[in-house]
C-alpha cells in the first residue's frame, strides 16, 4: 500500500516535471530559429476561426441568461436599471474569459491531444525527430502562440456578443432603454476590469495548448491510449482553467485594488 502510494506520488511529480520542461522548451523555441510561421497561421485558422461559431453562441446566450437572472434579483430591490452594469462587469471580468476558454479547451485541447497522440503512437513523432526536426518547436510552439493570440480576440468578441445578448433581453423582455443599457454597461467598466478580463485569456490559452500537447505527446498504448489522452487533456485543462482563474482573480484584486 505504502509502496503503491509512493509510486503514485512519484509518477505525478514526474508528470509535473515533464509538463514544465515541455512548456519551458515551447516558450524558449519562440526566441530562436527556425520558426514555423506557416504552421502557426494554420493553427490560428483551426483554433481561432474554427472556434468562432461556438464562442459567439456561448457568449450570446451567457449574456442573455445573465441579464435574465440578474434582472430577476434586481427587480426585488427596484434596481432593474443596474442590469447593464452587472452584465458588463460579469462578462468582461469573469464569464467571457472563462467560458470562452472552456469552450476552446473542449474543442482544441482534445484536438491537439488526439492529433499529437495519434502521431506519437504511429511513430510519426519519432520519425520527425529522426528527420532532424524538434517536435516541440514544430508542433507545440505554433499551437501555443496560436491559442494565446486567438483566445485573446475570441474573448473580446465573446464579451461583446454577451453584452449584445444581455441588451436583447433588456430591451425585448425587460422593456429597458437600449441607450441606458449600453451607457451603464460601458461607463461601469474601468481599465482594471478590462485588464483582468484580457490577461486571463493569455493564461488560459497557455494552459489549453500546453496541456493538450502534453497529453498528446505522452500518449501510449494505441488508439485506446489516444482516447484516454484526449479525455484527460479536456478534464485537466478545464480544471486548471477554473483553478488558475480563482488564484489569478485573487492576485489581480490585490494588485489592482478592490472593486
Amino acid at each position, binding site marked *: 500500500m505504502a509502496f503503491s502510494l509512493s509510486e503514485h506520488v512519484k509518477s505525478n511529480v514526474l508528470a509535473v516535471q515533464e509538463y514544465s520542461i515541455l512548456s519551458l522548451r515551447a516558450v524558449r523555441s519562440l526566441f530562436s530559429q*527556425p520558426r514555423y510561421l506557416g504552421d502557426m497561421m494554420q493553427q490560428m485558422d483551426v483554433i481561432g476561426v474554427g472556434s468562432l461559431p461556438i464562442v459567439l453562441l456561448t457568449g450570446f446566450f451567457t449574456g442573455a441568461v445573465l441579464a435574465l437572472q440578474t434582472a430577476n434579483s434586481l427587480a426585488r430591490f427596484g434596481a432593474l436599471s443596474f442590469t447593464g452594469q452587472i452584465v458588463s462587469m460579469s462578462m468582461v471580468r469573469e464569464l467571457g474569459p472563462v467560458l470562452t476558454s472552456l469552450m476552446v479547451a473542449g474543442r482544441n485541447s482534445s484536438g491537439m491531444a488526439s492529433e499529437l497522440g*495519434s*502521431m506519437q503512437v*504511429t*511513430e*510519426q513523432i*519519432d*520519425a*520527425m*525527430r*529522426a*528527420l*532532424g*526536426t*524538434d517536435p516541440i518547436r514544430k508542433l507545440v510552439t505554433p499551437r501555443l502562440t496560436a491559442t494565446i493570440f486567438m483566445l485573446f480576440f475570441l474573448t473580446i468578441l465573446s464579451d461583446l456578443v454577451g453584452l449584445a445578448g444581455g441588451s436583447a433581453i433588456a430591451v425585448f423582455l425587460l422593456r429597458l432603454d437600449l441607450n441606458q443599457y449600453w451607457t451603464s454597461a460601458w461607463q461601469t467598466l474601468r481599465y482594471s476590469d478590462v485588464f483582468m478580463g484580457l490577461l486571463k485569456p493569455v493564461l488560459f490559452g497557455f494552459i489549453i495548448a500546453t496541456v493538450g500537447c502534453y497529453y498528446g505527446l505522452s500518449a501510449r498504448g494505441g488508439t485506446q491510449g489516444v482516447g484516454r489522452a484526449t479525455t484527460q487533456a479536456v478534464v485537466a485543462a478545464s480544471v486548471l482553467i477554473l483553478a488558475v482563474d480563482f488564484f489569478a482573480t485573487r492576485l489581480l484584486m490585490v494588485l489592482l485594488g478592490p472593486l
Partner: protein
Amino acid sequence: MSEARHFVSEGHSAQGLVFNNRAVVFENVCLSFDEQVVLDGLSFELEHGATKVLLGVAGSGKSSILKLTLGLIRPDSGRIYVHGIEVTAMKERELFDLRRHLGMVFQESALFDSLTVGDNVAYPLREESLSDEEIERRVTEALRFVELEHTTQLFPAELSGGMRRRVAIARAIISNPEVLLYDSPSAGLDPVTSTTIIELLVKQRDVYQSSALLVTHRLQDAFLMATHRYSQEQKHMLPVPPDSDWDSKTSFLVLKDGKKYFEGDAAKLARSENQYIREYLTV
C-alpha cells in the same frame, strides 16, 4: 554522401580521425526499461559502406539499437559513436543536426498522414530550406528510385503497405545519408513485395555505397542481401556466384539476452554448429 563526412570534419575532426573507417560503434552499451534488461554490455562496429543485419527473437533489443544510434533513446551506460561523434554525449538540440545525416525507415513506415507522398519525401529537404525546383527534382529522383513517381499527390492512407515502405525508403534516402537504419522494412509483407523492398536495399548499398543497420525477422531477406548484388546494367539484383570474390560487405549480428551471441558473415552463420543458432535458423 559527403554531407555526413563534412559534418564530422566541421566540429568533431579529432574523434573522426580515431573512428576513421567506422560508421557506427557501440561500446559496452546497457539499456533497460523498468526492471527489464534489453541490452547488457553490447559492443559492435559497423564499417563505412558495410551492412550489418541484426537478428534475434522479439524483444531482444534490435529496434532499440537503431533508436540508440539516432539518439532517440539514451542508454543506461556505455558509449555510442556515429561517424566518430559520441552520440551519447550530445544534447537533444545537437542531435537534430546529426540526425539530418542519417536515414531511418520505421517498422510501420511512420509517414506523416496529413502530408502527401511528395510532401513526405520532400520533408527533410524543406527543413534545409532548399529551392522549390531543387526539392521537386530530388523528390522525383527519390520516388523514381523506389519506382513510385506516379504517387506524388496521393496520401499515405491511399497506398498499400508495400508502397508505404517504399515511400519511407525514398524519404530516408533523399538527403543522401551515409548511414541508413532499417527497422523490419519487409515485415508483414507478401514474399514478392518483400523481395522488392530488399532489392531496393541492395540497390542502395551497391549503387550509393551507404552503410546500414538492418533489423529483420525474415532470414530469407537477410540472406538475400548477403548473397545478391545489384546490376546497374540489368536494373535488378542478381545472385553472386559461389566462386566469385565479390564482397557484399554484409554481416550478421545475433542477439540473445541483451548480449552479442554471434557475429560473422552469411557463410559463417550458415555453417555454425551452435545449437541456439541452428534452432534460430531452422524454426
